[in-house]
């Protein structure tokens, strides 16, 4: 695979070409002087070689200039730089193996899959999940019992129904489930426990260390994994479920199930939290200036254009959106020149 790349040194195509032997000799000199084995006379001899021909000196200077890229990075955060490069390489190696698979299975270029593989860490979960969405996608599915399940962005579920039971495993993300009364109880499983219901409408959302549950209609029984004692959650209530119990959440600040309608509705929510919510729907990083983090935002935004939502949020805080790259945006105070 050949890449057409911008010239990273800024050296134009008309920069003079040096012969390979000059470049290799310059490299050999650098290595000799860096190796820790150089004799004092080596320094002198290297100087002599550089002076012998302008091409030698040019090669030497260019190598020095390339080194400065690394020195600059080392001057800022060497460990961060090293770890980033290392992880990036590892991830790309995994990726190219899958790309090879794409080619075998006949996909034209493997580009579309590359695009989402690159943004999605839960790739393997897609394979064994029965239903899944990618970042930015929302989708409704009708299950075999006619229940309707909405999957929010970057979510995955496994559905296992049999004659006596209905099981849904939330592998990733968030679902909104509307189930009709059925003789078989429906169970939803998540890392901190499970819930059981007969017929109702509710939302389950996985977080880092807990799962959020909002019941919209009817009621459900929740069993935290460690205590096992069932607790009832009724319509209108929002709870945070941990391994050991339930904690009530104020559901007025953020409308947890508005995404089903394609909107995003908040009342007096700190901007930093709002951005964390919005960033679930897009690739990349959203941040805000420290001075704006606690700004309380209110509003209703459309989820199908997160860029527009971001602009609106910024405006409400008297700020603006600054894009560093396509995937990295920050809300910063308006800069008056």
């Amino acid at each position, binding site marked *: 695979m050949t890449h057409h790349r911008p010239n990273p040194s800024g050296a134009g195509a008309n920069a003079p070409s040096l012969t390979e032997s000059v470049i290799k000799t310059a490299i050999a000199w650098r290595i000799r002087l860096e190796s820790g084995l150089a004799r004092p006379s080596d320094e002198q001899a290297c100087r002599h070689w550089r002076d012998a021909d302008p091409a030698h000196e040019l090669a030497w200077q260019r*190598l020095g200039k390339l080194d400065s*890229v690394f020195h600059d990075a080392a001057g800022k955060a060497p460990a*961060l730089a090293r770890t980033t490069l290392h992880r990036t390489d590892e991830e790309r190696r995994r*990726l190219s193996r899958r790309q090879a698979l794409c080619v075998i299975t006949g996909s034209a270029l493997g580009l579309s899959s590359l695009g989402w593989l690159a*943004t999605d860490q839960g790739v393997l979960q897609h394979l064994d999940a029965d239903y899944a969405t990618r970042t930015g996608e929302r989708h409704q599915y009708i299950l075999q019992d006619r229940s309707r399940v909405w999957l929010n962005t970057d979510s995955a579920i496994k559905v296992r129904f049999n004659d006596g039971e209905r099981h849904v495993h939330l592998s990733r993300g968030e679902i909104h489930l509307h189930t009709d009364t059925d003789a078989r109880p429906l169970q939803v499983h998540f890392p901190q426990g499970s819930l059981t219901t007969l017929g109702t409408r509710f939302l389950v959302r996985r977080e880092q260390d807990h799962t959020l549950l909002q019941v919209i209609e009817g009621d459900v029984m929740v069993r935290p994994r460690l205590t096992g004692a069932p607790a009832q959650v009724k319509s209108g209530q929002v709870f945070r479920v941990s391994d050991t119990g339930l904690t009530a959440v104020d559901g007025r600040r953020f409308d947890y199930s508005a995404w089903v309608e394609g909107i995003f509705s908040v009342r007096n929510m700190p901007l930093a939290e709002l951005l964390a919510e919005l960033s679930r729907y897009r690739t990349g*990083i959203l941040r805000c200036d420290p001075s704006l983090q606690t700004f309380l935002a209110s509003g209703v935004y459309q989820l199908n254009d997160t860029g527009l939502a971001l602009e609106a949020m910024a405006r409400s805080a008297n700020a603006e959106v600054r894009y560093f790259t396509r995937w990295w945006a920050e809300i910063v105070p308006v800069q008056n020149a």
Partner: protein
Amino acid sequence: MDGDTSEQAGFSKLYQEHHAWLVRWLLKRTRGADNAQDLAHDTFMRLLDRPMLPNGIRNARAWLAKTAGNLAVDQARRQILERNYLALLTALPEQEQPSPEDQWELLQLLERIDTLLDGLRPIEKKTFLMSRLDGLPYRKIAEQLGISLSSVEKYMAKAMLKCYIAAYGERPAL
């Protein structure tokens, strides 16, 4: 760039004839309409940098598709770097994070380093980064990686040549 009018007219004609096609081609292969538009734009910018315009429809479309495909792959590769960087950065305690200006500059430096070292074997890259980022002497690198001093020298030479070629031209003149 001189204002050669026939060349300019050729470009406009190519743009008019193939832009919509290229966007559709990209839409089928990448995710998101925005991205397809942007990639198509970047592809035509590359065309402007070329000394000669490709002739004939098949030829032009083949060139556009190949260039756009390479750009999309590069973009996906850069995105992986950026995502890893931001994830690691935000995981650092506040007092250990570089200043906001440095955060941005460091990402740009990393993108450059990434390009310069692209294609090296993992051990070669590791050796070179231990020297250049951590400032370790060759002897220490050999100890830590359990390799000989002459291997360190060999890998350093390979990495320096790679950087040189990436920065100053595909192949040095012989």
